[in-house]
């Protein structure tokens, strides 16, 4: 069967219907903080058992990619990432919304998500078996350095507040250690309560740190939540498309970063969007605008996190190793269906895999109209709902969202407590993002470090484990570059400026 046959199989009315429904449902679930992509996929799994494998996969892929995209809505409109992947979208998305460009930001996020999703899915279609090797090349030391790299990005991104960014990240690292340690099994910092035994859930912390301060501030200030510009309403699609076209290199670069990070099991959308955001800022002509509502920031993060969807399917389908948490659920569903993953799936199971990939591409394209409609509706309701209704709605969502993570009331307690801490920290200038990223990266760094140390010790070379592997060294170099880039740049600018004045003076002297 040729590729066209697979395309036509993906275009059956049932598959199209599931792609649309999946994307719409996913977007709504993703937009609600706490209801994550993993949850969206898990809810849908039992229904897919009644379908044939390719159709089931299309439904799951559609809801997954929709959920990752939907996370941007709340990030932009309420300053609360709907999923951890959208953390970096708050940096510029919310400032845009605040100054009245919320609709433009949502449209930009939609365009970026579609492009990122397409790049990831095309990589999955054309390059999956060779790219899967990337997943295996990353061992414990690489994950350790990747997390360290992520932490240096945080400090670099905390513009003008590097010290506070670092302190926030360290606080997050400490929070990541609470509970039963995965490695070593020690019980740490639980203060003797059962509540903290399971550790501080990343999603609970995310909801608490972002939502609670928003809720409190909404109540405490008389201003409307977002400014509304009356003359520029609607989708502003043309304007967004123009911006996206000028930033095409940013979009492609971010999508590629997202695809590659998505391939790494355990790294995920939050790291992908963080890396691409900092790359976008580094190569921008106006790095100082980042963090104040720069469209390029939204484009970078949203294209990167949707690219992780296609990227994450690569190790899932080729190696049977889930690239991201939702992929783990999808892999489980495949096993129940009796489908054996592996490189052979791309030849013997070609009709399943390629029909699915075409379905994923179609679902990603459908995200454009579906997302624009939903985004417009979300934007309208956020600006028209009176604050008296908006505040309790968000407050209720925080409770439902944090309960829904593990169906556990303990997570709600953790969320509220950490939220108040976050509000106080916010007042004295500590942003929530370094803290949340500290929690996410802390676990990766700790496990990577201990595993690398144990393996190095067994092989008689701890140092060569950390500093003797090419990929590790590459990541270390990137981290160093990130850390010292601002100094190097300012030195270089200063020298060029002094050089320029010197020439000018020399010219005058003649």
């Amino acid at each position: 069967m040729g590729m066209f046959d697979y395309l036509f199989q993906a275009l059956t009315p049932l598959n199209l219907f599931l792609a649309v429904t999946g994307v719409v449902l996913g977007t709504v679930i993703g937009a609600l903080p706490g209801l994550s992509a993993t949850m969206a996929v898990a809810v849908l799994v039992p229904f897919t058992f009644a379908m044939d494998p390719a159709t089931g996969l299309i439904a799951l892929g559609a809801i997954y990619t929709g959920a990752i995209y939907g996370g941007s809505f709340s990030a932009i409109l309420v300053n609360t990432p709907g999923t951890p992947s959208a953390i970096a979208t708050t940096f510029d998305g919310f400032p845009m919304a605040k100054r009245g460009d919320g609709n433009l930001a949502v449209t930009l996020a939609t365009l970026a998500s579609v492009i990122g999703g397409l790049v990831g899915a095309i990589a999955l279609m054309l390059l999956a078996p060779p790219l899967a090797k990337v997943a295996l090349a990353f061992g414990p030391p690489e994950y350790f350095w990747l997390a360290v790299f992520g932490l240096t990005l945080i400090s670099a991104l905390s513009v003008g507040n590097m010290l506070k960014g670092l302190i926030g990240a360290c606080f997050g690292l400490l929070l990541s250690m609470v509970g039963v340690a995965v490695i070593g099994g020690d019980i740490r910092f639980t203060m003797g309560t059962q509540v903290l035994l399971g550790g501080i859930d990343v999603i609970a912390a995310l909801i608490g740190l972002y939502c609670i301060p928003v809720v409190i501030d909404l109540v405490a200030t008389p201003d409307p939540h977002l400014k509304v510009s009356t003359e520029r309403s609607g989708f502003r699609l043309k304007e967004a498309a123009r911006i996206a076209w000028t930033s095409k290199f940013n979009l492609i670069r971010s999508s590629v970063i997202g695809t590659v990070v998505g391939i790494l099991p355990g790294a995920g959308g939050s790291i992908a969007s963080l890396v691409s955001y900092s790359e976008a800022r580094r190569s921008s002509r106006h790095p100082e605008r980042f963090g104040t509502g720069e469209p390029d920031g939204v484009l970078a993060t949203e294209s990167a996190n949707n690219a992780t969807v296609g990227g994450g399917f690569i190790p899932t389908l080729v190696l049977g190793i889930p690239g991201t948490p939702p992929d783990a659920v999808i892999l489980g569903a495949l096993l129940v269906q009796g489908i054996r993953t592996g490189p052979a799936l791309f030849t013997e199971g070609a009709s399943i895999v390629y029909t699915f990939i075409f379905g994923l591409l179609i679902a990603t394209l459908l995200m454009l109209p579906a997302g624009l409609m939903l985004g417009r509706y979300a934007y309208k309701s956020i600006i028209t709902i009176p604050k008296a209704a908006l505040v309790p709605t968000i407050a209720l969502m925080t409770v439902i969202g944090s309960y829904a993570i593990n169906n556990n009331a303990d997570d709600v307690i953790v969320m509220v407590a950490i939220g108040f801490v976050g509000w106080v920290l916010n007042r004295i200038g500590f942003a929530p993002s370094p803290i949340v990223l500290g929690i996410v990266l802390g676990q990766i760094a700790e496990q990577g470090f201990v595993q690398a140390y144990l393996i190095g010790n067994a092989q008689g070379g701890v140092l060569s484990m950390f500093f003797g592997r090419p990929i590790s060294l590459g990541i270390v170099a990137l981290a160093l570059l990130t850390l010292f880039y601002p100094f190097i740049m300012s030195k270089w600018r200063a020298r060029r400026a002094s050089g320029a004045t010197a020439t000018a003076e020399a010219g005058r002297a003649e």
Partner: protein
Amino acid sequence: MIRRTFATALAAATMLAAAGAAMAYPDKPVTYIIPFNPGGESDITARLQQPFFEELTGQSLIIKYQAGAGGAQAWSQLNQMSGDGHVIMGTNLPHIILQPLTSNPGYETDDLTNIYMFHYTPDAIIVSKDSQFKTLQDLIDYAKANPGAVTFAGSGTNSANHLALQRFNELAGVTTTYIPFGGTGPSVTALLGGQVMAGMGYSTVAANHADDTRMLAVATEERMALFPDVPTFKELGIDMVSGAYRGIAVPASTPEDIRKELSDIIDRINHDPDFIKRMEEGGFVVTNIGYDQIDAFMAQKKKELSAIAQQMGILKQ
């Protein structure tokens, strides 16, 4: 969420229907709580039971996840749930024995009312396809010549994998290094990527990664149908028959007749040839340990596991 609303609607409908008739168990949808994240072995086997349960009882089986603290979060709450038989929970061995032995997880092993252990995944030593170890003897010889140099990936500390390796070390008279990972997924990644020399995992790993791995030995009584060429540890002179058992428990307030009824339902699923076939394809070994045998089984396992835990020095103070 949709499923839940649907389930509630269904529940309402069936309750109306059942009002006149005699009450039979189960008379409404049953919630099956898995104390782990979706996608793991506990989830997959529950998903395999699901259609058979629904066909047998005419009621839907709703799978819910309540992950946290390696399962302890859910198990410590089981007895506060309603005991009418419509809430059941997955239990895992050695977890429910080891956790209370080594720490204070908020429950005791005897607090959990297990009614059935329906399968186990035997411990297995697995290497990647291109490993220098062709047989278990190769690995043992190398480990004897280079104490501590053979690295084994496994899932978690003081876990089933960790204990199995400890037992293997002792029985084979070798010293190896255990590298704990955050789950089966990451440990398999490390194994396939050549970051470690071997893996202590389950037969399911070999079943799911048949093209890339080689299983050197499996801890079953007899060779597995799926792997006729893989020797058991016993054949090789290492007395190891062990693995991770998965069962079902109910809240302590559940009446005796419902416990028996539920045990019978699970037993019937366990004897369905189609179910057995699907379990075996996944590398699972079906066990028929029903409500009447469960106490003896648990007592036996408790004895075995506390002995190993004591050797490892991980018993709580």
